[in-house]
């Protein structure tokens, strides 16, 4: 049996090569699902059989959570995508040749994300994030409408600037590490950096973190660097919106967290917390206001992603065992819930032939499963009990109240604003008179309800091993 890390990385690469030449979309979609499932299995194996730390690859308690989440949502999205994409083919929005390209890109994107998460080398991690970005850029432009091309272009330009700034930060980290660790590869390896971080030149490390925060922060979608995110979510195929929100933002966040650990380990460097808290709150408040004026349903939920990334970055900025724990939980819950919402929204937009909120109404009546799925998803994402997002947001708010009451007031104001905006929109879409076409939909409901039931379960009962595990990671994050 091959080493699970290698298997996680090679499976999508191999699948991409096959998918690029395989004719027939049904076969392609099935193989896409199969490859994602295989990756998920290997990710689970990783839990029990952890390979030793290498020069390029690393598995530790922190990244294993991200890898598992990545592979799980990758798999469920591939299942959703199989039913979604068939419909796009029927309506003629996509041609079979586009689908081959789409499936191959989907696998390469998953490869890029997993490589970024598993990298033990800051240069390699950077390359992998860049790869994942470029593949998503191509997928956002898949429909080739003027809007899709513009969105992809905007994403490409802003994403490249972000990634360039991140590379500059990476070089500065190397410069800080070089006098301590020595020239060459050794000074770019995580495990070394973490070990020697206390001896690094603090002022270089500070500047480096500013660049990394701006660079990877662009990809996390933090205001004021978020401009690409709503367009990219709205104009690309919906499975891509789901993985963008559910996974790619997390990958960039993971990179940021790694560097935060370095800074926290150095006693003379600035505390990374206040910067992250500031950007997090700004994103939250900004996105909460922006939610009110949305007319496009995918754009609406894209702003909700900015809002949640704001909360998560805020929680990690507050740090401490409780802050980090809440941030991790919030991140997991957001990924699961938001991708479930996009699964439902994708099918709804297909039935209605439009993404405009004005064209939708009475969904719970016309399409009960999709409609109630959306209601449950939105109820979860705004933080209503008994869903898991409630637990994590409650933790964020209560731990903040104990330490910084003023920040907590701002936080709660942002949460309530977003709550009002999303629920009023939900009311228009899900209830009231039925609007628009009411055609039947060949949807696969399993991915959506699987995610929602996990979120529900987490809200009611968090398994003790999971709690212990997250607490352990929270301690590592400092």
């Amino acid at each position, binding site marked *: 049996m091959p080493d699970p890390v290698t298997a996680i990385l090679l499976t999508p690469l191999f699948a991409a090569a096959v998918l690029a030449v395989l004719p027939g979309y049904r076969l392609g979609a099935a193989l896409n699902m199969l490859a994602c499932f295989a990756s998920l299995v290997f990710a689970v194996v990783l839990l029990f059989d952890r390979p030793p730390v290498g020069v390029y690859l690393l598995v530790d308690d922190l990244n294993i959570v991200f890898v598992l989440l990545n592979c799980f949502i990758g798999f469920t999205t591939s299942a959703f995508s199989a039913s979604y994409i068939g419909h796009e083919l029927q309506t003629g929005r996509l041609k079979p040749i586009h689908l081959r390209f789409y499936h191959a890109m989907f696998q390469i994107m998953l490869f890029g994300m997993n490589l970024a998460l598993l990298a033990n*080398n800051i*240069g390699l991690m950077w*390359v992998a994030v*860049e790869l994942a970005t470029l593949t998503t850029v191509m997928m956002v432009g898949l429909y*080739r409408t003027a809007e899709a091309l513009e969105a992809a272009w905007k994403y490409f330009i802003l994403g490249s600037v972000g990634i*360039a700034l991140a590379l500059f930060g990476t070089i500065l980290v*190397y410069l800080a590490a*070089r006098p301590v660790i020595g020239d060459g*590869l050794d000074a*770019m390896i995580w495990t070394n950096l973490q070990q020697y971080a206390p001896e690094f030149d603090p002022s270089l490390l500070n500047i480096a973190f500013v660049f990394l925060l701006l660079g990877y922060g662009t990809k996390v979608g933090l205001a004021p660097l978020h401009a690409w995110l709503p367009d990219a979510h709205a104009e690309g195929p919906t499975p891509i919106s789901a993985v963008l929100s559910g996974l790619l933002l997390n990958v960039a966040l993971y990179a940021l967290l790694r560097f935060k650990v370095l800074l926290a380990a150095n006693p003379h460097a600035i505390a990374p917390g206040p910067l992250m808290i500031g950007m997090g709150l700004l994103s939250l408040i900004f996105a909460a206001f922006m939610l009110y004026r949305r007319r496009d349903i995918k754009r609406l939920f894209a702003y909700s992603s900015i809002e949640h990334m704001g909360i998560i970055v805020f929680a990690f900025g507050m740090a401490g065992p409780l802050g980090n724990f809440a941030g991790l939980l919030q991140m997991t819950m957001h990924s699961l819930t938001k991708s479930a919402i996009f699964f439902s929204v994708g099918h709804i937009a297909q039935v209605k032939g439009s993404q405009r909120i004005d064209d939708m109404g009475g969904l719970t009546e016309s399409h009960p499963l999709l409609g109630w799925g959306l209601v449950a998803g939105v109820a979860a994402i705004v933080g209503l009990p008994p869903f898991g997002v409630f637990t994590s947001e409650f933790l964020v708010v209560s731990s903040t109240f104990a330490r910084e009451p003023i920040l907590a007031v701002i936080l709660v104001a942002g949460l309530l604003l977003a709550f009002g905006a999303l629920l009023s929109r939900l009311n228009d879409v899900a209830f009231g008179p039925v609007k628009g076409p009411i055609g039947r939909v060949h949807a696969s409901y399993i991915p959506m309800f699987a995610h929602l039931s996990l979120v529900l379960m987490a809200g009611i009962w968090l398994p003790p091993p999971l709690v212990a595990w997250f607490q352990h990671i929270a301690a590592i994050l400092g």
Partner: protein
Amino acid sequence: MGMVAPHGLSFDVAHMLAGGLVLVSFMMLYQDRLTALLHVLALHAFVLALSVAWQAHIQDAPHLYIAAGIALAFKAILVPYALRRMVFQMGLHREIETVGGVGITMLAGIALVALSLEVMLPVTAHTDPVAREDIALALSVVLIGLLMMVTRRNAISQVVGFMSLENGINLAATGARGMPLVVEISVAFSVLIAFIVIGVFLFRIRERFDTIDVGALDRSRGGQR
């Protein structure tokens, strides 16, 4: 591998080349014709190639010659040539891009250079002196590249701005002594991918013109003659 003497020839040449790169970045800011802008881009990459080769020489790091070769062949010759062909094919070579307020843009560029020196020189006081000022100048190039992307509207000018930004990062990477090859190759590689992406984009945009507006196609063909 000894520390480079702070005021030797090697030091001066390294700074002259890095400073030259900043100067060429300024030249980009006021070019209002795409073809002229592409010529300046080629010059930019050429200066970068010289600078990287010089670093290879003084650091005694042969692998940097490869990076210099990539910069020369790919960024100074191939990409500008390909972009130039695209400009002609799309009939953009006669157009004059409105570059709003050259004076203000230049002043902003000067302010950015001052900012990067002000930020980088104090914090790199303990690193080796060649790297120190190279990094500061590299940051200037990066920031001017950003400025260019912000002030231009045309897609090709934005790509040029992005490539000058990447050149700045390349300068920083080679200035950092002993930085593993992984990064140099990755930078070159990312530019390659970036170019492919751009090619796909431009191709698609052209394709859209083909199908939607035949008049546009005729006009661009007329321009090519």
